[in-house]
């Protein structure tokens, strides 16, 4: 299982062995990662699974669809490397991936 590091809002580095096939959001929820709320359960309707992806990893995560793009535009402090965790499916080549959880989630 790929090892993925979530850097939580208080700086804690939570390392997770994530099963392939589920999403980054699900891996975070199942392991109680602080700061990921995932209220809509992956429907791309809440923007509370927002993460910043380590720049080196961005290309390997694939492109954002228009719906995700729109959600992120007005999310809390979006960046070039913002993704919605529920739209990223974990693959075997993501071993070592690092993502940072923002200080806040949702709109505004």
């Amino acid at each position, binding site marked *: 299982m790929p090892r993925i590091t979530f850097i939580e809002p208080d700086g804690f580095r939570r390392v997770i062995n994530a099963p392939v096939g589920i999403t980054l959001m699900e891996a975070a*929820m199942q392991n*109680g990662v602080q700061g990921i709320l995932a*209220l809509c359960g992956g*429907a791309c*309707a809440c923007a509370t699974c927002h993460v910043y992806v380590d720049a080196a990893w961005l290309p390997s995560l694939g492109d954002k669809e228009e*719906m995700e793009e729109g959600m992120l535009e*007005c*999310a809390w402090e979006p960046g070039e490397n913002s993704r919605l965790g529920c739209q990223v499916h974990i693959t075997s080549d993501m071993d070592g991936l690092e993502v940072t959880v923002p200080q806040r989630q949702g709109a*505004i």
Partner: protein
Amino acid sequence: MISTIVIVGGGQAGAQAADTLRREGFAGRVLLVCEEPLLPYQRPPLSKKYLSGELAADRLPFRHRPFYDEHRIELKLGARAVSLDPRARRVELAGGEALAYDRLLLCLGAAARRLTCPGAELAGVHYLRSLADVTAIQAAIKAARRVVIIGGGYIGLETAATCRQMGCEVTVLELADRVLNRVAAPVVSQFFEHEHRAKGIEINCNARVIRLEGSDSVQRVMCADGSEIRADVVIVGVGAAANSALASEAGLACENGIIVDEYCRTQDEAIFAAGDCTNHPSPRFGRRVRIESVDNAFEQAKTAALNLLDRNVTHDRVPWFWSDQFDCKLLIAGLAQDFDQQILRGDPASRSFSVCYLKGGELIAVEAINHSKDYMAARKLIAERTHMCPAKISDATLPLKEAV
């Protein structure tokens, strides 16, 4: 000293409240009591990807078992609370066990409204609220071809779309003159009626169901205008009523839900309530509301948990909601009530548009179809009580956040 907090109801609100109590450092006992014999799980996929089989059951729970163990959240699953004694601060469970509490949180949710016409008790008539309900529906439609859905609200339409994708012949019967009539603008109703019909679903509006007929199991749905629709399975989605009996029988005020204030407090200082079961004030919208949504259950549960710990925070957020039907996503921000202007943005024929609601010039709600940008912008604009320019709103080439 608060040493024991009992939460009755382990749905979205109950699970969230337990989580928040621990994250906020509460060190006493937390008991989460739920009638359903399952780890707290998400309901929205029940009418969507779980019904279709796309999402497996193990992806429904919010958290897995170790999370509850690690956080010392004592789960009492398959346990129904049958009575409440506010004086003695005790909850009694079916079977006789009594739980003493220092503070109690009621997260009882809502129950599907039952059909009352003759024939409503026939086999083959289903409701959709719990995982057990979906298991029964899945078994029923395996052997069935014709599914009749009574009620064209969110759950009815989502279920219709999913059953159609699973290969059923589907008819939706709606009492009003359009689907989603209580919850969306006419143009949004028209859009969804069109989408469903294009996928081969029959939608009959102005259809008053008067009787269900069949020998062993339901076979026909009879309407007031004399029409008769053949059915192998009937799924009823005619709204939900708050589960408030536990509270009202204990003498707590209830009216369309358990009455709470903006701190999620009931009349009893030791008893709080959150989620679908509450009737609560919305300071922002200046009225009492009962809202059935994930967002409301989550936010109220968080507020209630903080106030169980005497933090004095109020619940006054901009509500939001979503619904998935086929490849269309309806995103709603705010409450479209008491508005004085309704403005269309974009062309429904493009399958991506939105409807904005203004009251005295202020943006109070937006319904966005396949338009996450307008929806997210709206959540912010509504929260900030922004006055908008109607002419700019109707110019869909301009981002909504610039239509001020």
